[in-house]
């Protein structure tokens, strides 16, 4: 059981914002360091391995996207990107480059805090190969090919099953259309977002109490989907 405070590295070129984040996150019990640009962030990360990196996307010199790539090359640390609304393309690129989640500016602190908690809770990748997946009330047994929600068994088609399994493995993480399609249907289908929507719709009908207001499979508009287990 770790009683060290979780380390968060915040990367943003806006000093006003980082002032606020430093104080706010520290008060919440995190160990926070600030980096004003990508280079300094990487330097800091070398000697001070953070458990979470929060980075702005639009920075001069090294962009957030570039930082994501470089970080991913050396670590699986969860990454949350901060971006302005409307920059969907960059967000998708960042997510595909390895970021786990995004928060749109301007954001309320509670929103950011919730994403931070979710990101820190995420299980490390090494557990991804296990035969049993659990997320919230959901349980999947990959060997017997069964899926349950609470105590009630889910009747899923093969593709729905795979989709749910992949979502659960990446619970809390934002998955782009591209990566979802690639993971479940393979490389030739990565542009068929309609296809994906149809399957998501079917899955929602089976697991959501109110499919028109999904709780578990959340739409990230223009970007993809996210599985929320709680």
């Amino acid at each position, binding site marked *: 059981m770790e009683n060290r405070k979780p380390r968060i590295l915040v990367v943003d070129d806006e000093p006003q914002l980082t002032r606020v984040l430093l104080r706010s996150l520290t008060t919440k019990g995190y160990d926070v360091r600030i980096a004003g640009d990508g280079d300094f962030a990487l330097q800091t990360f070398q000697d001070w391995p953070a458990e979470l990196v929060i980075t702005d996307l639009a920075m001069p010199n090294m962009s957030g996207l570039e930082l994501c790539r470089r970080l991913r090359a050396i670590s699986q640390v969860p990454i949350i990107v901060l971006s302005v609304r409307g920059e969907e393309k960059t967000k998708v690129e960042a997510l595909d480059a390895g970021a786990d989640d995004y928060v749109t500016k301007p954001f309320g602190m509670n929103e950011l805090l919730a994403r931070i908690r979710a990101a820190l809770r995420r299980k490390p990748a090494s557990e991804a190969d296990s035969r049993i997946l659990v997320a919230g009330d959901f349980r999947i047994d990959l060997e017997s090919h069964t899926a349950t929600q609470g105590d009630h068994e889910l009747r899923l088609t093969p593709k729905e099953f795979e989709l749910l399994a992949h979502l659960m493995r990446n619970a809390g993480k934002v998955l782009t259309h591209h990566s979802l399609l690639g993971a479940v249907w393979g490389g030739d289908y990565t542009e068929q977002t309609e296809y994906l929507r149809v399957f998501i719709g079917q899955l929602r009908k089976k697991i959501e109490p109110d499919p028109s207001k999904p709780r578990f499979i959340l739409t990230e*508009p223009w970007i993809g989907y996210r599985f929320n287990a709680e």
Partner: protein
Amino acid sequence: MIAQWIKPRWLSYGLAILGVVAITAILIPFRQRINSTTVGFAFLLVILFIAMAWGRKPALVASVLAMLSFNFFFLPPFHTFTIADPQNWVALTAFFITAIAVGQLSARAKRRAEEAEASRIEIKRLYEDLQNAFERASEAEALKRSERLKSALLDAVTHDIRTPLTSIKASATLLLEDREATEPVEKLAPDEQTAMLRVITHGADRLDRFVEGIVDLARIEAGDLTLYRNWGVVEDIIDAALAQAEPLTRRHRIRVSVENELPVIRVDARAVAEVIYTLIDNASKYSPPDTLVSIEAKRVSDDQVEIAVEDQGPGIPVRLREKVFERLYRGHNNGAAGELIGGIGMGLAIAKGIVEAHGGHIWIEDGAQGRGARIVFTVPVGDDDLNGNVPDVVGGDKARADG
């Protein structure tokens, strides 16, 4: 033969004369065996060549020389200039006519060829000039368009930002002073502080939505929306709008009904999602909790899809159904409409702008059974490009003119 074009003139005359002399020299030894006719032909041929190579004037010179030579060396009595013989005249005439006619022809051909070459070089230069001119023109055009955008942007921004900003500033300074205050009596109670902070937060939210709005407005006014059209699936767009509107619809029931086999639509997907978002926002704001907000989509003709958002609130009175779409700048249009329209601000105006930029219409109807409001809009099914603008294709003559 064409290569001779570039030789200097005196050289051509020289060579012409040389030609005649050469022929003379060659034929003199044979003059006993061949008759003068043959010599005449030979001279004629030489003159012909000279005319073709160097034109009329050297050929004329050669003609005269040829005639003299013909007379002197080849017409008996040899080595005399007997002019009397009419053959001379015939010969001379023939030489002259040949010289002139062929000289003319070849001069003309030569000139035409030179002109064509000059034209070609000219064209090449003009081509480059043209390229540059159009570079500059397109830059100028681009700048002109962006000028329009800038103006539209400025216009929008200067108005409505200040109000929320003022509140933010006032609250913040009040709270700061409060922090500095030492007398407990003067300090703000926690709930007062909370209230101020909420003012700040809401103010920031309003500003944020405002920024979103002005960008859209600016783009609409600059005639920009037509550039981003692409195939969009109605369900995806509705899905995105709903996801964005999630916080607003927590206390309402939502129903989505999309007709089967709806065609893809040719729209700026984000913009249309924004329209739907605005309508959902509107619907949830003006209808009581736990009521239904429904979103429908169906095809109404070969080239149009209709999307509607309906609520179960008080509805919108008929006399206001046009006005709600007007952009409210300085808060003029108040009175009875004020309380209803107050919160809408620019949303519906933008929605209208977006819909119309796609060539569609937006209007308000009564909800089911006469209750509530139902806002409907149409968007084009695109097979043909209804408004003539195809992104990424050089089809400039079909491009939509500004605005």
